[in-house]
């Protein structure tokens, strides 16, 4: 049965951060240098709400997870770090 699992998993969180770094050039369609976790997704990176959703979709495919997006808030989309926090604690796993 598929169920939401809170995963306070440092290993998964690091994989999310690495995956975001790898996927940003694809989603933004331009080169993106390595950014610190506090980099703001909208103001500094130029992501839009639509491209953030594309990034979530790409993260699901890259990490082979499903993200429970029902609870996602604007504050979760503030920075690379806050997005990694959200994704790593809202991964749906098959159990």
């Amino acid at each position, binding site marked *: 049965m598929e169920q939401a699992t809170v995963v306070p998993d440092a290993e998964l969180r690091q994989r999310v951060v690495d995956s975001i770094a790898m996927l940003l050039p694809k989603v933004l369609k331009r080169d993106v240098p390595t950014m610190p976790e506090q980099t703001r997704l*909208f103001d500094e990176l130029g992501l*839009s709400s*639509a491209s953030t959703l*594309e990034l979530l*979709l790409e993260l699901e495919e890259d990490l082979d997870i499903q993200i429970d*997006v029902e609870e996602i*808030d604007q504050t979760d989309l503030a920075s690379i770090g806050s997005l990694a926090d959200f994704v790593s604690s809202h991964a749906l796993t098959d159990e």
Partner: protein
Amino acid sequence: MTALEAVSAYLPAQRVPIEDLAGRLALGERQIKVFRRFHGLGEVCREPDGTLLDLLFGAASGLTELRGQEHKVRYVIYARGMPVGVPYPMNPLHDLCGALGLGHAIAFTVTHHACASGLLAVDVAGRLLASDGEPGALALVLAGEKTFTRDAELVPETSVFGEGAAACLVSADGEHDRLLSYVSRIRGDFDGRLMADADLLARFQKEYPEALAEVILCAVEQAGLRVADLRLILPHNVNVVSWRRMCKRIGFPVERVVLDNVPLTGHNFAADPFINYRTAAERGLLRDGDAYLVAAAGLGAIFSAMVFLH
């Protein structure tokens, strides 16, 4: 006081999966996935062999309360999102009036509030009837459009249009459903074509939530209510994710937003709130005395909300 006397909806039988529109709308596989996974979009209603008159007639002929009351109808108001629907000199609204026995009524179109024009039309209808002061007089409000160009099929990164239509009877002095408040904000700084202006699209996406929330909260306050007093929100059907975020912002449970039609019909221009009204009625979600809010946004841009008492 302006009141919705009756509402009907017409959804063409043909349902087209959004994947079938991808080629014509230049939507990539990833965009379609985002639409399905996050926006909650799935299919849209289309009637490729039908005319605009067929669509409006489908909505109006479902309004059984109109029958026998045609002589009371003083105004027929068509709420359009797109300014132009047919080439001159065709006039399906006048053809419709003839077909319905409403040739005596004053018929005109309001398009100035884009996809929020349905709310504008209800307000205009009520105010015209009130100023006439003729007891029992009615107005027929219509909404629904053909998806005949790419701009009439897609809101970039946001939604896909369908051909659902709706009709309602409005009075100035009815008991149900009474209009308690109407708030509308015109934001001319969003004028332009989202499909051709990426900066405008980004700015609109960024400021949309606050602008829509502001009219929703203002309409609730003007109705003398709190958000928690609302039984339902009847939304426009742009997508699910924006309503989830809106609910968090205004503190309202998303389960009480009638989003049933987003995956089935897509966004039907100015007709969505009325189509969703029918869904709420058919599901028995509204009881006498319930307050509910209707919300819509139009490109260009307009943000509108109304509160009614059922």
